[in-house]
């Protein structure tokens, strides 16, 4: 499996005891989107399933259909003696913190949020780095010199995508225009494909020929728009190249699957580490996707140039702007 080759971290121990002892129990709580969102939650589900196949763990996946259901779901896992409980998405941060505090012997993984407890592993991704790469790809490929960005919910996390993407575009050609739209500012913005399609259509109408859609299930509408108008689009989180082959230029990968897989793996191997992990290009945690579905539209020249930029970022030669930094400095200014 390709995934294994992309594994980050330095986890070497052979699984010695795991196979003999009772299988470890892993509970995964997905958020509203559910395992079929083809994006963020789907990635987590994929990572967990792969780990189950590989390590024979006892895996249970539940979906918190509303925010009120998150805490009891996490708590039920902890109460039932699950060894590792995984929460996906920043929305689960608060609830997971409460539950983790009450169950110090259980270990937790939270993706996309920071929980500073000794039994919690917090994994955050440098989305801006990956976005910078796909921004560069868009700028290298566009013919109209106009590209678009469609964000889901207007929150700092998605702004981080936007700013990275914008910087990537301008790194290649400062003259390329970037149109930006957000689906909304409430959590409904993640599941509104109608609006996702509308925004895409209007951006294409304004001459954009490539869009980057970081909008959860709403992005599926944008994919439809790309297919309808014969334009191109860039996927997000999971590898979405297969959704509309020939129209998906690439996908900005956020390897939630790897984060989940590795956490389970380290748990089975007894090397689980709590703490905060910021993972980026260097660790292979964010990347751009290249496979048979987009091989024909992503030219080798563009690929070479992108890989070059990628290395420059890893080496620190290119500094990608991080929206979180601007936020922090903004807050400081305010305080001063």
């Amino acid at each position, binding site marked *: 499996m390709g995934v294994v080759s992309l594994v980050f971290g330095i986890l070497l121990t052979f699984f010695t005891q795991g196979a003999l002892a009772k299988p470890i129990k892993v509970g995964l709580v997905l958020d509203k989107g559910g395992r079929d969102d083809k994006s963020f939650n789907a990635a987590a589900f994929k990572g967990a399933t792969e780990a189950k196949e590989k390590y024979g763990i006892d895996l249970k996946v539940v979906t918190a259909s*509303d925010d009120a259901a998150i805490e009891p779901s996490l708590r039920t896992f902890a109460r039932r003696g699950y060894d590792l409980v995984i929460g996906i998405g*920043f929305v689960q941060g608060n609830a997971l913190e409460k539950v983790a505090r009450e169950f110090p012997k259980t270990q937790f993984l939270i993706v996309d*949020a920071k929980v500073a407890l000794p039994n919690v592993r917090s994994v955050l991704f440098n989305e801006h780095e990956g976005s910078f790469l796909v921004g560069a790809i868009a700028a290298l490929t566009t013919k109209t010199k106009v590209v678009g960005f469609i964000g889901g919910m207007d929150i700092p996390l998605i702004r981080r995508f936007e700013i990275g993407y914008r910087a990537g575009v301008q790194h290649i050609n400062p003259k390329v225009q970037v149109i930006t739209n957000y689906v909304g500012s409430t*959590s409904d913005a993640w599941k509104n494909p109608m609006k996702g399609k509308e925004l895409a259509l209007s951006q294409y109408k304004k001459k954009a020929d490539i869009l980057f859609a970081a909008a959860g299930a709403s992005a599926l509408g944008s994919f439809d728009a790309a297919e309808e108008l014969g334009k191109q689009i860039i996927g997000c989180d999971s590898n979405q190249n297969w959704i509309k082959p020939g129209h998906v230029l690439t996908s900005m990968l956020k390897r939630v699957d790897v984060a989940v897989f590795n956490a389970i793996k380290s748990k089975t191997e007894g090397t689980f580490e709590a703490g905060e992990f910021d993972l980026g290009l260097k660790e292979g945690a964010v990347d751009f996707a290249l496979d048979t579905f987009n091989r024909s539209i992503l030219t080798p020249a563009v690929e070479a140039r992108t890989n070059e930029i990628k290395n420059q970022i890893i080496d620190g030669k290119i500094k990608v702007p991080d929206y979180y930094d601007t936020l922090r400095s903004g807050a400081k200014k305010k305080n001063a």
Partner: protein
Amino acid sequence: MKKLFSALKGPVAGVALSLAVCAGLLALLGESPYVLLEALQSTLFTSFGLGYTLFYATPLIFTGLAVAVCFHCGLFNIGAEGQLYVGSVGIIVIGSLFPNLPGALALTFGVAAAFLFGGLWGGIAGFLKAKRGSHEVIVTILLNFVGIALANYLILYPLRNQTVQNPETVELSAPYFLPTLFESTGLFESTPVNLALLLAVLTACFMFFFLFRTAWGYELRAVGASNRASEFAGISVGRNTLLAMFIGGGLAGMVGVNEVMGHQHKLVEGFSPQYGFTGIAVALLARNHPIGILLSAVLFGALHNSAREIEFLSDKVSKELSLVLQGLIIAFVASHYLLENTLKRRKKGAA
């Protein structure tokens, strides 16, 4: 006793029948029907499960009452969903205006704010109905959109907590916190069920008293049962319409007491899993009787809670089974009432 039995007969039969049908469905899907019982058992008879059941039941008591009190006045309040958001916002607004009140006063202010804000929101529909004859169903449905949008605006902009990703308001100050029952009694192991439950039970008892033992409740019910007879009795239809919608809205607003003061201590965008609409079912099952609403709210709380249990217990069926169960109960109970009414009418036609 006999009266109680005949009142409970319909709902109990409906619930039993629904469980039987769901058990049949489970068998068809190749799952042990026992899963259903196990899920209900753990949601009702374990202290953890019961804690969450009661936590969900609390807002349903409020919204059930919100629907019922309007029903008694002949009004169909479909606006509880909007009213509960506006009431919840009210708590945050008052909480941020007066952060440093002493404990008892803060709690009073918080509860009063929830009631008043929700009440004003419901009152709009009552006012329009009384003055302009606008149909309350249409108005309350539309005010749901407006109320939720208004609440979202306040959550996203003026009251927003800028330090977190999730759209939520700043936190209340500590005097506004209602203790959870776990904190105050050690029961219900760390579930969020809180003192708002007690408030809800008291409110239901008070509403029973208000509706059936006071002249105001009498007038309200008279208007609901017969507009014309009320006018001839010198009872103002308009004033009672306004009053019912105000009280209904206020009761829905009290959901915020449970959610904001008792649980989150802040208002989170989209927190309600449609408590306002489930309240309609809760009231229907209880035939709008305040005490019955206590029971039916617990039942619906348990069903909502059992969704998670079902997901934990079974790989073959999804938690939507609990929605099927809720739907079946509503359908069976409603058809039972329908049948009963038809029979009654037949009998009357005979005389």
